[in-house]
């Protein structure tokens, strides 16, 4: 594992209060890896905070949304020839302590993507009814399409290998990309695995998905998943 080039990608939009802490924690638990913060057109000091904490920072000229921001990170990883990329959210919800779990599973089980799931095994994850319901629906739909049980398709805490970096660098969904990207990977015959993780409460900032928006997103993403099943894709 030591000779593989690993990049931790942290998408951040107006997260000046937490992005520095996340970068420092990742450094603490994984001393060798490179850390890239993708600043998605933040209006606060996210970029400065991230630079001060020692991360490499990609500044997007305007807000592209989580999908566009993550894809920028994957493009960077692809250009720079990284073997593994790990997504860790900039709001501090993902515990960097758990990254090694993702990495080990990716290595040992020959998976193409490993997702940190909040619903596998023991977890004290709490959230609103609405969100739980949304995740439940996505979980059912994605599981049917993939022919494999996926408990947490909306999780953004994930590690991917070189093959998937290549795919994501040229194909990545826009607004609410996690569930849709799994359907995409299924089309490219990738191995998807889940490991149980614990998720923390948010350090700072506000979740990008509010109540009314979440209904809109659910319909939109379900539609996108449906369309994806018929779309032609190429690298």
């Amino acid at each position, binding site marked *: 594992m030591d000779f593989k080039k690993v990049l931790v990608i942290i998408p951040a939009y107006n997260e000046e209060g937490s992005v520095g802490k996340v970068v420092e924690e990742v450094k603490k638990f994984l001393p060798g890896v490179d850390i890239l913060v*993708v600043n998605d057109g933040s209006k606060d000091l996210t970029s400065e905070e991230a630079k001060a904490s020692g991360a*490499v920072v*990609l*500044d*997007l000229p305007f807000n*592209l949304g989580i999908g*566009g921001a993550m*894809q*920028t990170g994957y*493009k960077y990883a692809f250009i720079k020839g990284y073997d593994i990329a790990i997504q860790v959210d900039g709001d501090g919800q993902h515990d960097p302590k758990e990254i090694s779990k993702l990495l080990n599973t990716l290595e040992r089980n020959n998976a193409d993507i490993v997702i940190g799931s909040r619903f596998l095994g023991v977890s004290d994850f709490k959230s609103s009814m609405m969100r739980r319901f949304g995740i439940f629906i996505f979980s059912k739909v994605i599981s049917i399409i993939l022919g494999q049980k996926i408990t947490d398709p909306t999780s953004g805490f994930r590690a991917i290998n070189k093959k998937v970096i290549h795919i994501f660098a040229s194909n990545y969904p826009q607004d609410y990309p996690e569930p849709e990207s799994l359907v995409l990977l299924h089309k490219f015959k990738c191995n998807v695995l889940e490991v149980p993780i614990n998720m923390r409460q948010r350090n700072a900032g506000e979740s990008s998905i509010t109540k009314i928006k979440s209904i809109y997103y659910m319909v939109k993403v379900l539609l996108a998943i449906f369309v994806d099943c018929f779309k032609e894709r190429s690298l």
Partner: protein
Amino acid sequence: MLIKVQILIGVMSIILLLFTFELIRKGRLREEYSILWIFTGLIIFIISLWPEFFLSRFIPKITGLFYLSAVVMIAFLFLLLIVLHFSIVISRLSHQNKELAQRYAILELELNSIKRLCNTSQKMSA
């Protein structure tokens, strides 16, 4: 009644055509999009020249639609085509826009690291 509608449609199509030409001349509308508009204007203009033939005989004969409903139908179809065309153009543009922003961010990062490298090597040699 018919002559009034004829004049109205004729004048409107001429205004549409003149406006389109003016936009192209000033470079505010690309030729690619203007073709649809010119086409629309011309068709309406031609209809206004022989409304009796088109609205009461030709169009009802091929479509079964009569007179005013035929005018509305044609206008609606053209608008639908134009709007669909715009959706396609906007989709393409937003995709290209995203692609550009991403490349710009990566290039800026690379440029800055090269700049820093140049600065340190200059200081070393000085």
